[in-house]
């Protein structure tokens, strides 16, 4: 077979031999999907089955699934070159992905529960445009860690010969969220209670109205699922949240059952949001979210005291201090006619390093964008806003998020538009290079 031919002395590797087991589920999943989609038909077919046909079916299906799993595993290769990660896959439809290492925005190593039992892990490089197909699933847990260290070393610009030996960069723990604090913070979140109340009230009302068990079950189960996901699911996912700092960037580890380890190299963070729900205000807690281009994870700290959160933000965005609440300038008084009540929640401050805009009255959210990350600046003004001489200024970042400073005075907004474009252009000059160790 021509699968193992070496190209330009790049050693190609295969995934962990456990991988076919994962793929073997695919035909079963198709059957289950069909049964769920069309239950009547499935039931009719099932009653027609006798034991012998069932056994014959299984005898065909299981080897077929095993063969499929084996072949996809056999035909999937990956290789690390000086500048790229190459993934070659596909039995019938060939697919080759070359991922440039200097464009890496983040590296995720995740271990779902079953993978932890088997001692394997998934590795995914977040580059703009990569999707689920571009993850390496599965690698041995140690191999995944070694590969991550090697990829980071190469992306950082270490010489190719030494990239192997650099190994894992030392990390220093910045913060670990205690389970008690996480539990209390979830109890103090409105969404948790909202979904729980909905899951109890809606089925009860339906039962009183219809007395039909199936209708009640059909609404109660999804609602209970949502309630579980927003409380228990979040607790399990955000359990033991650890943020650490290393020369390779920020490390975020979390999870009770499924463990996830994310590494964000320096200079990749596009936006940081500091969110302050109403009920957390008394305790001085905040939640910090971040946007990295091409990455799906968006939480930096699920819950932390404000001072600690601000010191972590200062680590994530070097040279940035979170502007004090008093330094935010409010929209002019006349703008209440454009957005009654809500206008009080808006605020804006532009420092040497960041564009910071706040919104929200009960759930305050302050978004920080470093000037170097601004891709374009827009000024928008509707007819009613024109009457009251106010305008919105929008700042677009590379993570496909837009931060809006609402209801600024029209003259101020016009000045801000041009000044911000200027700052975003010059802000890039003292940004660190893509290869942060080079």
């Amino acid at each position, binding site marked *: 077979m021509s699968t193992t031919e070496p190209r330009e002395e790049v050693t190609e590797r295969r995934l962990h031999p456990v991988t076919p087991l994962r793929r073997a589920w695919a035909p079963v999943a198709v059957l289950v999907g069909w049964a769920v989609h069309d239950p009547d038909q499935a039931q009719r077919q099932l009653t027609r089955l006798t034991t012998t046909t069932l056994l014959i079916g299984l005898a065909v299906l299981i080897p077929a699934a095993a063969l499929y799993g084996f072949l996809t595993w056999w035909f999937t290769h990956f290789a690390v070159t000086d500048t790229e990660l190459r993934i070659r896959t596909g039995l019938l439809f060939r697919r080759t992905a070359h991922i440039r290492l200097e*464009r890496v*925005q983040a590296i995720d190593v995740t271990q779902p529960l079953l993978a932890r039992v088997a001692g394997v892990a998934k590795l995914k490089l977040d580059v*703009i445009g990569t999707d689920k197909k571009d993850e390496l699933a599965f690698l041995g847990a140690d191999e995944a860690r070694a590969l991550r260290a090697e990829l980071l070393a190469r992306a950082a610009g270490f010489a190719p010969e030494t990239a192997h030996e650099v190994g894992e960069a030392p990390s220093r723990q910045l913060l670990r969220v205690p389970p008690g604090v996480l539990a209390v913070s979830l109890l103090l979140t409105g969404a948790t209670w909202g979904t729980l109340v909905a899951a109890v009230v809606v089925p009860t009302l339906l039962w009183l109205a219809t007395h039909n068990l199936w209708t009640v079950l059909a609404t109660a189960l999804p609602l209970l699922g949502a309630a579980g996901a927003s409380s228990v699911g979040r607790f399990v996912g955000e359990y033991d949240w650890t943020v650490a700092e290393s020369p390779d960037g920020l490390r975020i580890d979390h999870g009770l059952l499924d463990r996830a380890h994310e590494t964000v190299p320096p200079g*990749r963070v*596009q936006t940081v949001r500091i969110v302050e729900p109403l009920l957390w205000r008394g305790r001085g807690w905040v939640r910090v979210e971040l946007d990295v*281009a091409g990455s799906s994870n968006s939480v930096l700290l699920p819950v932390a005291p404000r001072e600690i959160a601000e010191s972590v933000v200062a680590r994530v965005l070097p040279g940035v201090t979170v502007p004090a609440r008093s330094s935010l300038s409010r929209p002019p008084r006349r703008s209440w006619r454009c957005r009654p009540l809500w206008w009080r929640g808006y605020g804006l401050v532009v420092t040497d390093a960041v564009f910071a805009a706040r919104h929200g009255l009960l759930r305050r959210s302050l978004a920080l964008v470093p000037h170097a*990350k*601004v*891709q*374009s*600046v*827009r*000024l*928008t*003004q*509707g*007819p009613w806003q*024109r009457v009251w001489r106010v*305008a919105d200024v*929008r700042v*677009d*970042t*590379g*993570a*496909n*998020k*837009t931060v809006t400073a609402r209801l600024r005075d*029209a003259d101020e907004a*016009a*000045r801000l*538009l*041009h*000044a*911000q*474009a*200027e700052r*975003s*252009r010059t802000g*890039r000059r003292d*940004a660190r290079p*893509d290869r942060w160790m080079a």
Partner: protein
Amino acid sequence: METGSPGDAGTAGATEAARDEPVWTGLPPGLLRMRRLLLVVWLGLCALAAGLLPGLFAGPVWAVFALLPLALMVWGWVMLERNWRSWRYAERADDLLISRGVLWREETVVPYGRMQLVEVTSGPVERHFGLASVQLHTAAAATDATIPGLDPAEAERLRDRLTELGEARSAGL
């Protein structure tokens, strides 16, 4: 129609201000002609249908329904010109400005270094009228920087110039 006063940013000294004073360019009249023609053709057909069908089946008085699309056409004729006038762009030393909209005004600034891709597109109708649009893409999908209805030669000149400037000032994410 004057759409605001996009003066300089008030950043630095007088030389900066002189350099930053944008020179606005409007769109050529081709786009207006094309849009007006499309308006007349479509609303004309609507008016014909709205006039003929009730006129034939329900009596000649009902043919006044045709006035509705006609009124819309007159209103659209004026509106299209206002909208066309509002579109303008300026190439400055370091960034491109695009300003548009009459009631909902929008002004976009894209630094050249942030451009990832410049695209010139031209549909069949546009091609018939000798028009092309230039679209700028940055790493942010929200950046909606399109200049429609340019002369193809101007569109290509703009594309080449933007690409050249973008390469010279290139910066990643």
